């Protein structure tokens, strides 16, 4: 049976969502990112903004210089997540085989569905129209026999396009691509390929497998060989992959060595990590602290807990132990992050000797989380995060995706 793998990618997703809420943004250059201060980075830029050279991960300050008249928005990540779930529900109404590879990208397996819905090209067009009509969002799609080619096809079709690579035409389709446009060819591999005079997939197609294996090793060599011929995995894995870690980090609007401020921020970050784990009924076994100094040197320190935890205080105590020695360097700190990994389902094991205290703590977190769910996370402050009140600007932290 002919495989039909569809890759659907939202066009400038965060900007699209903002535009669907505020139609006056249509046609204008829009940038979503950390606009607080001058130090955030661009998370999403509209196609109008991209014409001015603005791209994601670029400092907001640089973007402002490139296009001062663009609309800069701070981003509402909870909203984007809700919209992403709504998109997923639409996809799932067409096929159970939906793999969300990120907040704004999905692979769908429509193999065999031509018997129900008719030819795949028309089906995908109907799916795209359904998303556009119900959520007022712009999106593009690629259809191929595997996920790799489908993704490249979707990217080529952007914005608001649809491209099908017919079975048997993969090698020909890939030949014209620049190697840097292929997902999986990162900076390091790209430089190595370029040093060998290889710039397009077509050039790579001329090389035989044994040579590629000799130069790049077995894994990378055979991947390059298969990629050049448009071969890839057709396996769409539905179900959300279990998160491996949960973390939060913040870049300060001004570098600082103020210990009171740093401890306050650390507490605040630990609270956010704890709340996230409790919401998912998980606990973590390793605490990792990431600290970047103003000279961009980054220190990462980890420690293991004998038992998993999702308790703010326990996370904070470990993170503080990791952070304090790093402050001895006496260089100002630019970024602070806390991550919990080795995640597992919370055992909720009751304790023999401190049952009453444990019950009190569990009840406290239940009430705390419920209050914050209802009135927002910042509605309630506790512990050392209260120290932040004495500093003028509270840290604006942005959730990172669980890795």
């Amino acid at each position, binding site marked *: 049976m002919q495989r039909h793998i569809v890759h659907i990618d939202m066009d400038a997703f965060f900007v699209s969502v903002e535009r669907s809420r505020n139609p006056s943004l249509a046609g204008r250059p829009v940038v979503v990112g950390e606009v607080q201060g001058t130090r955030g980075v661009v998370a999403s830029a509209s196609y109008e903004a991209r014409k001015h050279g603005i791209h994601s991960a670029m400092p907001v300050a640089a973007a402002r210089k490139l296009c001062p008249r663009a609309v800069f928005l701070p981003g509402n990540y909870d909203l984007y997540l809700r919209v992403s779930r709504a998109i997923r529900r639409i996809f799932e109404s067409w096929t159970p085989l939906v793999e969300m590879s990120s907040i704004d990208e999905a692979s769908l397996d429509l193999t065999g569905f031509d018997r129900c819905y008719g030819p795949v090209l028309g089906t995908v067009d109907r799916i795209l129209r359904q998303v556009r009509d119900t959520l007022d969002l712009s999106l593009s799609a690629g259809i191929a026999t595997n996920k790799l080619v489908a993704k490249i096809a979707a990217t080529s079709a952007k914005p608001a396009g649809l491209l099908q690579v017919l079975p048997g035409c993969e090698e020909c389709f890939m030949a014209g691509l620049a190697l840097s446009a292929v997902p999986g060819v990162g900076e390091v591999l790209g430089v190595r390929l370029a040093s060998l005079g290889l710039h397009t997939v077509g050039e790579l197609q001329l090389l035989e497998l044994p040579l590629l294996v000799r130069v790049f090793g077995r894994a990378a060599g055979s991947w390059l060989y298969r990629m050049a011929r448009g071969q890839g995995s057709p396996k769409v894995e539905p179900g959300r992959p279990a998160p491996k870690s949960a973390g939060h980090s913040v870049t300060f609007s001004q570098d600082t060595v103020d210990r009171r401020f740093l401890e306050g921020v650390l507490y605040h970050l630990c609270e956010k990590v704890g709340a996230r784990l409790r919401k998912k009924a998980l606990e973590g076994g390793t605490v990792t602290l990431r600290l970047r100094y103003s000279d961009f040197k980054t220190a990462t320190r980890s420690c293991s807990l004998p038992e998993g935890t999702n308790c703010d205080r326990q996370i904070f105590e470990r993170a503080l132990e990791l952070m304090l020695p790093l402050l001895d360097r006496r260089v100002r700190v630019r970024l602070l992050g806390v991550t919990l990994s080795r995640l597992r389902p919370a055992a909720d094991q*009751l304790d023999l000797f401190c049952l009453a205290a444990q019950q009190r703590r569990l009840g406290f977190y239940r009430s705390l989380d419920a209050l914050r769910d209802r009135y927002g996370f910042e509605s309630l402050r506790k512990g050392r995060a209260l120290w932040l009140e004495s500093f003028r600007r509270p840290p604006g932290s942005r959730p990172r995706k669980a890795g």
Partner: protein
Amino acid sequence: MKITVAKEPLLHVVTAIGGIVPAKSTMPVLYNILIEAQDGPDGFLKMAGTDLDISLSYRMKATIEKPGAITIPAKKFGEIVRVLPNSPITIEQTGERVKIDCEKSSIVLPGLPKSDFPTFPEKTFEGAFKVSNEVMRKLVLHSSYSAGRDEDRQILKGVLWEIGKEELSMISTNGHRLAKMTVKESLGVSESMNVVIPPKALEQVDRLCSEDGELEVVIDRNHIGIRENDVVIFSRLIEGTYPNYEQVIPFYNNKIAILDSQKLSDALRRMLTLANTVTHRIRLLFKEKQLKVSVSTEEVGEGEDLLEAEYQDEELEIFFNGNYLLEMLKYVESEQVKICMESAESGILVVPAEESENERYLGVIMPLKVTDR
């Protein structure tokens, strides 16, 4: 040094000593086993190992051609002895190397001098009290399994030994479950005392001491020594105050279920195959005259098992780490087990349904919080 020794007893001793040799140490000599031979009319072969907390030494019969002492890597020596033919083994020291010969096989291992090896606390067994191996083994096996492994609280890593005038008890807990074994036995001690011992030291009693016979035990402020004929175990005691465990034993739980211990274990084993591998969450639902053991784990599966139970109270649903209950049942020696409960989020008491006059075993397990998962 040159000695000849039979394979089987040597393997037994080397395996036991290998069990206490540390896996990681900053002192390389601790990876080694000490082999010491003394000749003369009282000649003997002594083998010893230590991790600095526990030391184990064993005297055995051997033909001693030339006395001497050296240390060699314990794990490697154990591996070699295990695969040698079942014939007398000759161990000969040449400088800092040791040659092991057996039939036509010959192996050479590097050694370290005895002087590098830490000296053991020289304890005399004068004034030691005596306890039968059978009693000691019973106390250890029925309690030590429940001790903490890597908890923050060091004291819970040990087994509490309460030596009373009339009875002996061993207790261990990891903070989630507790096991206590009591045997009526008078050791003739003038005052009762409590010590906290690393379970690893006690496990050597089961491993090395004979089925019957008596152990000599000597205790001072920091150490305990246990000896039976040629085996001597020394261990550091764990310092600190053991928590007041009696306070948490729920003697007054009044919802009582009596079940066939074997059938309950079998049902738990079946359900545990589907349980989450970290939490081992199992659901027990007590209803009139029956118990439903069930499990439901996302992405793994679900299952249930029905058992007959003597239970008259109101319906009670309670969640457990199934492994805790299964392990506890292993040491219930009566056919039926009595489970005494109070509520879904308070500890349960597990005891044999038939009481024995001379010994009492009890276990306490804390449930998992009731959730909709």
